[in-house]
């Protein structure tokens, strides 16, 4: 582990750009911190933080100049790996037949700047869905394979955070190339940097750096330990899967449905939700046809449509599907929970439905159908 000055961020950005990485990182847009193309550390939300509660998100000025003094916003990195709209293939009519060609969009090499521990876990979970099953999603794979990840350890968790409950943070343990811990006090503002891969190490050696002292490491450890104790939320997962499966007809599903608007915000902001739909389209001549894949949500009525109507016509069935999948089904399907404790679904729910509260009520309930 080494120490770099904040000015070395500029060098880091430059080195990545020189290696033809497209940099994507946090910046302020429409009063929220989103992940977008950035070119310089000056574009980072320096001196800003975010206040988060159920159904509430506000940006606020900090009284210091932290580069990463906020948690996570409405965007997640999945928008850059499992993109919201993906052309899958294009078909050309050929006499009575047709020829289908896989769409190859040759994505740029990307470097993600400021990936939190919970988001590293979310990326690992989507890797399992798209890369580690019977079938491989070539579109996800082409974006994922050249990805460079600069992680940032969370020293100030937000009001809806519960990554510790999901064993997903606040410290970035694996799945990054470089991990930064921001150390700020009266006398200095530096980053403690850890390399997580050979190419991370190689890049780090080209940055102006100095060895980290034991005191620096200890400070980072303390900050992270303190952060782990200040999570805004928590979720007990022991036995949760079984309890959810046993309680598919629990009255709580009706209760939450009285508030749930079935708006799909939770699924859009969730960094692991992967469901999609496809659209088949043609041009006016009818000579070419496209298939496009788009993010979809289990909260829409179309999602479960089969001949005759929607299987899940009620909001309670849709909320049950989403939460039971996230916290139970995922474990059977992919050997991991589908939740990383980032708290986005709580913050961005327009009516402030809290997955940790809903899960607790089902888990602690003794009602069995």
């Amino acid at each position, binding site marked *: 582990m080494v120490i770099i000055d904040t000015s070395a961020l500029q060098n880091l950005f430059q080195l990545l750009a020189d290696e033809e990485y497209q940099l994507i990182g946090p910046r302020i847009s429409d009063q929220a911190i989103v992940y977008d193309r950035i070119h310089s550390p000056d574009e980072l939300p320096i001196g800003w933080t975010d206040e988060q509660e159920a159904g509430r998100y506000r940006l606020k000025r900090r009284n210091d100049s932290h580069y990463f003094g906020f948690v996570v916003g409405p965007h997640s990195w999945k928008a850059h790996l499992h993109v919201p709209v993906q052309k899958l293939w294009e078909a050309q009519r050929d006499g009575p*037949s047709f020829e*289908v060609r896989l769409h190859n969009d040759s994505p740029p090499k990307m470097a993600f700047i400021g990936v939190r521990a919970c988001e590293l876990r979310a990326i690992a979970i989507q890797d399992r869905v798209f890369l580690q099953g019977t079938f491989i999603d070539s579109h996800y794979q082409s974006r994922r394979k050249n990805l460079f990840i600069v992680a940032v350890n969370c020293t100030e968790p937000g009001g809806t955070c519960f990554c510790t409950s999901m064993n997903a943070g606040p410290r970035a343990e694996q799945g990054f190339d470089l991990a930064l811990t921001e150390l700020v006090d009266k006398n200095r503002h530096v980053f403690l940097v850890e390399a997580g891969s050979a190419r991370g190490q190689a890049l780090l050696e080209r940055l102006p750096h100095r060895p980290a002292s034991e005191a620096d490491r200890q400070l980072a450890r303390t900050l992270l330990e303190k952060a782990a104790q200040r999570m805004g939320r928590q979720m007990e997962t022991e036995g949760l899967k079984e309890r959810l*499966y046993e309680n598919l007809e629990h009255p709580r599903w009706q209760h939450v449905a009285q508030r749930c608007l079935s708006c799909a915000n939770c699924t859009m902001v969730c960094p692991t939700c992967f469901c999609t739909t496809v659209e088949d389209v043609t041009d006016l001549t009818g000579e070419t046809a496209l298939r496009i894949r788009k993010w979809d949500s289990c909260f829409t009525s179309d999602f479960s449509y089969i001949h005759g109507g929607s299987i899940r016509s009620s909001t309670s069935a849709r909320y049950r599907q989403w939460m039971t999948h996230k916290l139970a089904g995922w474990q059977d399907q992919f050997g991991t929970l589908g939740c990383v404790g980032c708290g986005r679904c709580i913050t961005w729910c327009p009516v402030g439905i809290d997955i940790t509260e809903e899960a607790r009520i089902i888990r602690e309930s003794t009602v069995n159908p």
Partner: protein
Amino acid sequence: MAARQDPMIPLPYRIETVQRETGDTFTLTLVPAAGDQIGPFAAGQFNMLYIFGVGEVPISISGDPSESGKLVHTIRAVGSVTRAMQRLKAGQVIGVRGPFGSSWPLEQAQGNDVVVIAGGIGLAPLRPVLYTLVKYRERFGKVILLYGSRTPEDILFRRELEKWRQRFDMEVSITVDRATGRWRGNVGVVTKLIPRAPFDPYSCIAMVCGPEIMMYYSVLSLKDQGVPTECIYISMERNMKCAIGFCGHCQYGPYFICKEGPVFRYDQVESLLNKREI
């Protein structure tokens, strides 16, 4: 599936014949249009069928698994894509991806009585089973087909049913919900045929396909006869967009119907089947 092939890319298949089955149901026989073809299928599996520019739907394979090269699909026109398929003619080309999903337990059925229970279009995914049972008849105990249809006019595969009914080594019973015209056979739900069927409940495999409610009550009746749940198989249906476990639409409890299904051993899904809106 050829190795170079992305699982989302349909292969062109030419329609060899279009057979009208009933007012709203028809059977397409498909042959590869460009040389490339999908891999062999097992009874109970399905393909994704694509009409150029219109859309794609999951349809079970209703043909004989031992006939290679040809694909047979029996389709009911119920939505925009299947209605467009109803207008297709021999010589036209459609796209095929597959085969996908689990299959009926024909291996386990060997040496046992086999009870096939179908409701409506549910007979289509079971027809590959019946072809296999007839072809290797000596490997199985008693073979029983119980088939329920809405009306006599909705009965599928009439000629084959008649042929099977005439065999001495097969029991075929048909019932209709509503008798019309000169129907003189059974009237009522298919579950009523189960207590009368001559099979050994302790040494049989039951394969059931039809509307969920019909499967649910069929299983209850089979259990009443003493058939253990692990000897009963059903085939489930949900919305499907990809058939390869990515789109999430076909989830049923912990399962993806495109991967772990459509054919499930009953005890896998028992706790879900009587719940609403799963």
